[in-house]
Each structure stands twice: as structure tokens, then as C-alpha cells.
């Protein structure tokens, strides 16, 4: 079990309830937009979503899906 530590979400310190047993018990705001990393360089959707696909490009129609599926 990981030791408890404060969460900082959108600049606000969040507490993990002492009786939290699972990830689902951690209260998360629904409007989390980002976590700022050290170098702050995050790629926005517009970086790639607007790339014109060349003629003949065989697109991947599946969504990339990682994690535990929660």
C-alpha cells in the first residue's frame, strides 16, 4: 500500500481520506484539466488532430485504450 501523500489538482491540495480503500474512494473533481510537469510541455489535441492525412493513408479506426478499464 502506498504511503499517503497530498494530491495537488489544479493547484489545490487535496486530501486522501484516511479510510480510502480503493482508487474510487479518492475524491476527484470532474473538471481536472491537466497536471503541470517540470518542463511544462504538454501536447494539445490541436497539435495532431489537424494534421492532414496524406492520400492513401490507412487510418487506425480503433481508440487507444490503456489501463485497468475502470
Amino acid at each position, binding site marked *: 500500500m502506498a504511503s499517503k501523500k497530498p494530491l495537488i489538482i489544479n493547484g489545490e491540495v487535496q486530501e486522501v481520506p484516511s479510510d480510502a480503500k480503493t482508487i*474510487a474512494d479518492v475524491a*476527484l473533481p470532474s473538471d481536472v484539466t491537466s497536471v503541470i510537469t517540470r518542463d511544462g510541455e504538454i501536447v494539445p489535441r490541436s497539435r495532431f488532430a489537424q*494534421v492532414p492525412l496524406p492520400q492513401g493513408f*490507412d487510418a487506425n479506426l480503433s481508440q487507444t*485504450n*490503456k*489501463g*485497468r478499464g*475502470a
Partner: protein
Amino acid sequence: MDAHTRNVSLRFGATLYERMRAFHLAPGKAHESLSYAWARAEETAAGLRILLPDSSPYFPFSADCFTRQSAGNVQLRADVLNGMLAEFAATDFNCIVNVHDHWFAQEAHFSAVDDEDDARFDRYLREQFEPMLATYPHIGPARDIVNVSIVFAQQSLAARLTNTMHASCTAASTTAIELVTVLDNHWRTAPIVPAERTIAAVANDEERSRHAEFIPASTVNAIERVTVGLVGCGGLGSILAESLVRTGFRKFVLVDDDEIEATNLNRWQGGRLQDVGTQKAYTLAARMRGFATDVQVTAIATALDDDVALHALTGVDVLCGGVDNDAARWLLNHVSLQYMIPWFDAGVAITTAPAVDFASRYFSVLPGITGCAMCKGVDLIDHHEVVDEYADATTQRARRAAGYVIDQPLMVGTPSAYLLNQLAASSCAMEVLNYFAAWRPTATLIQKSWRADRIARADRENYAEVPSQSCALCSTYTGVGSALALPRRNRSVLSLFTSSQSPHEKEMSHG
């Protein structure tokens, strides 16, 4: 080779590795994230090696790139993925690395969802993406794509290769990456799952028992796992090889195309009269196998720029140079940079005027961390000598014949430099060991003068040099692998105009 039986390793630049960790394990992070990197996958003698230098394109995606992002799941938008794939297709990168995190876990493991997603994406690569490149050259160069996945957790990472084309009915299509190296000031491996194999009961091993009190078990494990590429098996290299074996290194690739001559016996470690006429690399390998029970040596008696030698060297973990010419150092500099291999070089010189002095020199190149041999701030390589070597084989032979004497090359024959070679080899071996043990900052340059009784030592603490921004080699070649050709004497443009030898004659002259 079947995907699930091959050796696969991954080599990170330290800055990129820390950037990935910072993105995926940022303090306060409470949802999974996904990022991608483009890399180069190289088939080496030691297996497939994935090169991820600091300059690798890396894309940590923001929240608006996902259709779903929760504590335990992340789903990337198809338009983002396809835009990235279209740009990837147009490059010459041959490896795409997807990275996500299980930020809530201490140890990293791929989940069933990850398994399914990796297989699905790989089928797209094999059945659609690669055939598309083969059909439409305007989209990008046709090539086989290496599909790598990494998952970070708080204490470890897991990494694997997926290739559904290599899957059999019974075997999985994934191959665990067993070694993840982070190029840093000292030897560093990322904590991976499954854990690296360790060697138990070091203290009970009689061959190593006297080291156990001062060489940590972790260092012993590391140096027994790595492969050292030793280039130059002459007077200096023969001592260096023996020093490294007796220190605990166990796997070697030796490269030298020279034979032992009678004049070498005054300095060739362990050389005997009956060894005259034998290949230095083969004879040294035979001696090394007798030093310990588990020494593994591959001896290659060809020129350094021979295909066989270079293929073997691109798969080693550490390069050691005991060469006697700067053209070889120039090539080693390229191998080190292009394949992200730390390189430790030893050299000696005897001057006779105004008075005899015995000088030794050591330097190291840590690609992406230090300057390379051409941008260190001190002249380590005589560029004119390199040009001569690559342009004119006759000049090369004359320079080699001059031996160690640098101030009167045409007047004094090769001296008996055994004592000086011992000094230089000892210094180099000590620094190689320190690179793994991290007792003190890694030395980047050491110069010793016997007459002046002077030792000048620069290391990562007192002179933390970095690759020069104006260095064309560091900026262009670091981590490119075989995407850019290594320098080759017989293939240089200049040699085509300055030599009338046939390729066969050239090979004979170097062999």
C-alpha cells in the same frame, strides 16, 4: 528470430527518461496518462536495442487528447493518434513507443486491457500501416516498425515488444525488455519488472571474495552482466583486458587485426615466444578465458571498420579503447555517439626532448552527458591524422610504424612502454569500475606526467562539461544508430580518388 525468444534492451537519455517519469508520475497526479516517443531500433550482435536519446521526439498528451481519462483508464482520440502516425510515417524512425502509467501502483505490470490494446494496435501496424508504406512511398519510407510499450509505476517500470506477426498459436506475441539503461553520470539501469537477475552469494565465490568488501554486490552484478568492447589488443589493451577480468568483468568483445611480433614481447602482457605470429585478439582471448571460469570472450581479428567488428561493437554496453591512432578514436567516437555507448579511452606517449617523459591520458565520452571526443574543450583527436587515415592508407601505415613516440616519429622506434602501459591501463580500468560503483564522480579526462609528477583530473563534479551546442557530431549523431553510416575507410569518397588498391588489396593490407 521469433519475437518471444530474442534479447531486447532499451537505452534512454537521462533527460528524456526523467521527463517521462515527471509527466507520468507527477506529484498530485490522479489519473492515467499516455505519451508517445519515436525511437530507433537496432539489430545488434547482442539483440535488438531500442535507442531513445534525449533528442527523440516525445509527445506527452494533454487532457483534451483523450476521450476518457480516469484514475485507472485512458483512451486516446483517434484523430490525435492518426495525426501522429501520419507524421511518424514521414520520418525514418522505425520504432514507436507508447508510454502510460499505473500511478496508483508501486510495481508496474501490464494489465489485460493493455494486452488487448497492444495486440490490436500491432495488428494495425502489421496489416495496414506497414503495407501502406510499401504501397505509397509518398507517405513515408517503407520499413518494419518496432512496437514498444512502457508502463510506469511508482517504484518500477515494465517494458515490452509486441509483434503479432511473430505470434504462434501457443506463444505470446510480446517480449519483455530485460534491460533498460539510462545514460547518466554513472551506470544506471531503470528498475524493471521482472527484476534484473542477481548473482547470489558473491562472498562465497572464491574468484571474487577479496572484492566483496569494497565492491558492492550491486556493482558486481552490474559488471558481470555488461559486455565490454575492447578495441586494441596490443601492449595497452592486453593489460587493460587482464585488469578488467580480474576486477570482475566477464563478457568481452575484442577487436584487433594485428599479429604478435617479436618486438611486441617487451610490452604485450603475458606474451611468450611461442605466441609470435598469432593474432593478438585470439591469443588474448585464450588467456582471458584462463583467468576465471565464466569469462565469455568474442575475439575478432579484423580492422575496426570491418562489418563484423562494427556489428559486434554496436551491441556492447561499454567501449574501452586501447588503440594507438586517432583514426580509430574517431570511429570509436562515432560508435559511442550513434549507439549511445559509454566510451573510456586510454593512451600513452613518450617524449624524448628536451628530456624523457612518460605521459598517459584517459578520457571518457558519455553520449548526451559529456562532450564527445571532438568537442571536449581540449584537443583529444588530431583531425589531420584522421583525414590522412581515411584518405591515404600509405600514410596510415607510416604513422602506425612510428609507434608511441610523438615528437621524433621518424627517428625513434617503438619503445618498450610496458611500465607506462600499466599506468595507463590501471587508470582506465579504475575509472571504468568507478563508473559502475559510483564511488566518486566519473572522470572525463585525466592526464599524467611522470617527469612533472603531475596528475590533472576532470570529473563530473569539478568540470561538468556538456555536449557543445555547436558540435555537429553530438547534435547530429547521438542515438541515430545505423540511420547514418559509420565512417569507413574503404568507402570514403577521398579514398576513391587517392588509392589505386583494389578492395581485396585493401583488406589484405589491414588484415
